[in-house]
């Protein structure tokens, strides 16, 4: 993969989330990939300490299916989200893999509430026959240890 493909991928993924194309988004993931959102600044251990999210394919699928459920009360009315990205910083790149870090501002809104989160998103990407896929994603929220209300969509 080349730098432009990688950069386009990062922008396209954020676009899908903002457009609510969650099922298409899930197709971007390799089956054994994990989405990690640490609870602590510089957290190293996602297993023996609490995280905000540490979800495999099953849990991400549940998250998405739930959003469309008839009795998902906290999504009546639905939330919307919006990502603004800095230019991705490509840390490593080869023909078949890349590590990319991207600063983003994430806005989530529902009813009259709107919250803004500052993120550093680290993607591990792999080239496959079906195009670039996510092998792992870590989302560090700048104030990850702050007391939040609901964060319902996917930063």
């Amino acid at each position, binding site marked *: 993969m080349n730098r432009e493909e990688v950069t386009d991928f990062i922008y396209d993924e954020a676009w899908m989330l903002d457009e609510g194309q969650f099922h298409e988004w899930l197709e971007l993931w390799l089956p054994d990939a994990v989405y990690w959102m640490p609870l602590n600044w510089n957290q190293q251990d996602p*297993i023996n300490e609490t995280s905000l999210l540490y979800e495999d394919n099953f849990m991400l699928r549940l998250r998405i299916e*739930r959003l469309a459920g008839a009795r998902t009360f906290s999504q009546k009315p639905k939330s919307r989200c919006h990502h603004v990205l800095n230019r991705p910083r490509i840390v490593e790149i080869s023909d078949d893999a890349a590590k990319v870090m991207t600063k983003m501002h994430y806005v989530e809104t529902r009813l009259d509430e709107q919250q803004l989160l500052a993120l550093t998103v680290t993607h591990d990407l792999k080239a496959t026959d079906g195009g670039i896929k996510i092998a792992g994603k870590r989302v560090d929220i700048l104030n990850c240890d702050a007391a939040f*209300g609901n964060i319902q969509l996917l930063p």
Partner: protein
Amino acid sequence: MTDTTTLQERVNDLIRPQQVHRDVYTSPEVYRLEMKHLFPNCWVYIGHESQTPNKGDYITAQIGDQPLLMVRHSNDEIYVMYNRCPHKGTKIVIDKAGNTGKFFRCPYHAWSFKTDGCLLAIPLKKGYEGTGLEDTEAAKGLAPVGDMKNYRGFIFARLATEGISFEDFFGESLSSLDNMVDRSPVGKLTVAGAPLRYMHKCNWKMLVENQTDTCHPMVAHESSAGTAVKIWEEMDKPEGTPTPPAMQIIAPFMSPYEFFENMGIRTWPNGHGHTGVHHSIHSDYSDIPGYYDAMVEAYGEERAQEILGENRHNTVYFPNIMIKGPIQQLRNFIPLGPDKTLVESWIFSLDGAPSELTARTAMYNRMINAPTSMVGHDDLEMYERAQEGLMSDGLEWVNIQRLYEDDEDFTETAELNGTTERQMRNQFDAWKRFMIGGAA
């Protein structure tokens, strides 16, 4: 409202046997009275001793609206005191945790204090000569709380200088804390990592009540637990595929009413109580290799089975914490206003036990209690809708009469159908008494 007779009348007017007035959730005046009377008269959770392992280690905490600090002194004892300089009132420490060395130093005028609170030194001290400083409160250093207790590593304090003893306040309910600690083969827990911090725009009591509300999971959590069960059933998986830990945690939330009726509720005096007398949503977690053997080695087979046979679900310690013994969790419901509550969800590792137990409790915490949790989302939605709905002038009373019995005696331990709202009535009985001093 200045005298106790008026306070007693006001409090009695808010609580009826089968219903409570909405003011207990919405009124700033009632909230102010809780801060002034209820919280100071009760034994309230401060923190765990493993948060301050070394001399000079401290954490900040609060009881009601009172800022406190807990510190390990040079004699290895833990002290709890007000986090307020006796000089001008500046908070001595501001971060959640740290190490102060041998003394605290106020950042404003550099008055310094030993880690037991005693005044150590004042700059330019001769300016106070002949002024009678030694006779003032300021000269006594950091003010201690009324009383404190380290119970098997859990630190509780009572602000009021006179009042109910720790043993009388908790009584038999300590069996839940005992069971959680006994699950460690060496009888010791350690806090594992930072707590989840989740802000709720609702009254703190809504959260406490929800801990023994067994009629909401299958309704409010259908979107998460119900969807999980549906996806798992639809998946094309080989025969005998073990249920993954995430499914073991989330699926029981969709258990039918009958499951919750049969699991039972036990209430103890002074507002404490627990769900899961006979079994609970934690009963069927798969075994973790090596754990049972370690327990048998430590306690003998009979005692080990007795400890692990208790599967209490949520134990409420009045006024504002809940623990889950079988998965080593503690949730602290910290009031910040009549309609604002900070929820801190802590997890513990069991000393001497396999780390997989900690991994499971961490998974439970992020799946159920996080601001990003699909389960927590719908709970918070319900509390906030209730907080808004209670502003309606159409109705003034909140109904808590499910399985109500005439002449309920809250000074007795009771075991009932798991869907009773008796534990909520038990909490309001205690609320009423501790608002006016804790008298029986």
